[in-house]
């Protein structure tokens, strides 16, 4: 098998993503549509939370992707710093706004959910707090990308920010836990056997989670393709300028 690094070449990457992007987009659309339809129309109300349980099908996948997008940025940033593959840096750049949106969705659905459950739009619960901090990290990351003219400089600096930021994001999580015990529900999906959740909830939730992963893949691929093209445009413009 050819090395995975081959796809660090923009041409190879464009060829691969040319079919991978639409495939994952279609799959994502299908899974999310089925999952949300199942969850919204066919799932019974929870005995405690009533109809609000339906929010989980958006809330949890978005929260999942919010964290995973940052993890992916961390990995691609490292690859850029070590192997200096441009595609990797551009993929990290493309993931920024997507991760930020996912974080925002998790925050907003959580806030809306909090209104009936905890009686308040916002509570300074550790998980909520660390998500807010994560959102700020995303915003800072995106702002740094857009503030720097030179693409390689921007890639280097944002990569360092991502590395250092990751450490502080993890620290923030502990700090938040230390600070306040919180209201938020613990992880109930991770304990697989003896699970508390019924399949009528789990089914659509899993579908949506896989759907969100695929949506993320599709969006990152699309975004990276765009960034590669933008980068190429820039290079051509520089050449044109030089010719003048």
């Amino acid at each position, binding site marked *: 098998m050819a090395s995975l690094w081959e796809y660090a070449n923009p041409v190879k990457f464009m060829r691969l993503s040319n079919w991978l992007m639409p495939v994952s987009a279609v799959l994502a659309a299908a899974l999310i549509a089925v999952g949300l339809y199942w969850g919204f129309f066919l799932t019974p109300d929870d005995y405690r939370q009533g109809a609000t349980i339906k929010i989980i099908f958006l809330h949890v996948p978005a929260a999942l992707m919010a964290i995973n997008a940052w993890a992916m940025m961390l990995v691609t940033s490292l690859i850029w710093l070590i192997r200096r593959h441009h595609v990797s840096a551009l993929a990290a750049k493309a993931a920024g706004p997507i991760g930020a949106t996912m974080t925002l969705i998790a925050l907003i659905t959580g806030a809306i959910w909090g209104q009936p459950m905890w009686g308040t739009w916002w509570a300074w619960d550790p998980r909520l707090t660390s998500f807010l*901090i994560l959102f*700020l*990290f995303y*915003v*800072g990351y995106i*702002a*740094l990308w857009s*503030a*720097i003219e030179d693409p390689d*400089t921007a890639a*280097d*600096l944002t990569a*360092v*920010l991502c*590395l*250092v*930021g990751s450490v*502080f*994001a993890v*620290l*923030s999580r*502990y*700090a*938040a836990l*230390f*600070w306040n015990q919180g209201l938020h529900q613990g992880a109930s999906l991770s304990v697989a056997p003896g699970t508390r959740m019924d399949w009528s909830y789990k089914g659509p939730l899993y579908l949506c989670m896989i759907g969100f992963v695929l949506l993320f893949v599709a969006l990152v691929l699309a975004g990276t393709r765009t960034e590669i093209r933008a980068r190429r445009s820039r290079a051509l413009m520089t050449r044109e300028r030089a010719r003048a």
Partner: protein
Amino acid sequence: MIALLIRDLRLAFRAGGGFGLGLGFFLILAVLVPLGVGPDPVTLGIIAPGILWVGALLACLLSLDRLFALDHEDGSLDLLATSPIPLEGVVAVKALAHWGTTGLPLALAAPVLGILLNLPGAAYGTLMLSLILGTPALSMIGAFGAALTVGLKRGGLLLSLLVLPMYMPTLVFGAQAVTRAAQGLDPTTPLVLLAGITAGSIALLPFAAAFALRINLR
């Protein structure tokens, strides 16, 4: 290195008194908050640890953007980068000078402001200790943020945006320590965590900051 430290301290004092001003800002914040919040002593006592720590943090932040920017503008940074001192050392020394002119005086002055904000008597020692332990981390993290944004015009606000989320753990542990002390609880755990963050920042961030500076000088 010592020459650099002396120069930076001298610049801070000479240029309108960097250190008096950090203090001034801290003092004014301690005055503004009661004006904004209202004079109720019980409320003030409860929020005092948090406000004092937030104030210290903002006072640090406000002077950060010029940490490397001035040297960048007048070309000193290019010359320092080609000097015999490693850039990591330059970053560390500059963070130290920043701490010496903001963090340290802030820590020493904090008890006075505690009185303004009605801080409970038991917390004064912890307040100073937590600030002395925590503010070096603020300066070091800030130096990293300043290194990231040094080339950018109006980097000041971008710097705040990048740095503030990273200040969050320091703030939480610092304020928690003081709050616990004010409530008569044991503040050791947050103080130890605070010291840990400071030690970690000092050990690692000079390298990240020097890397960022080299990129920005390119």
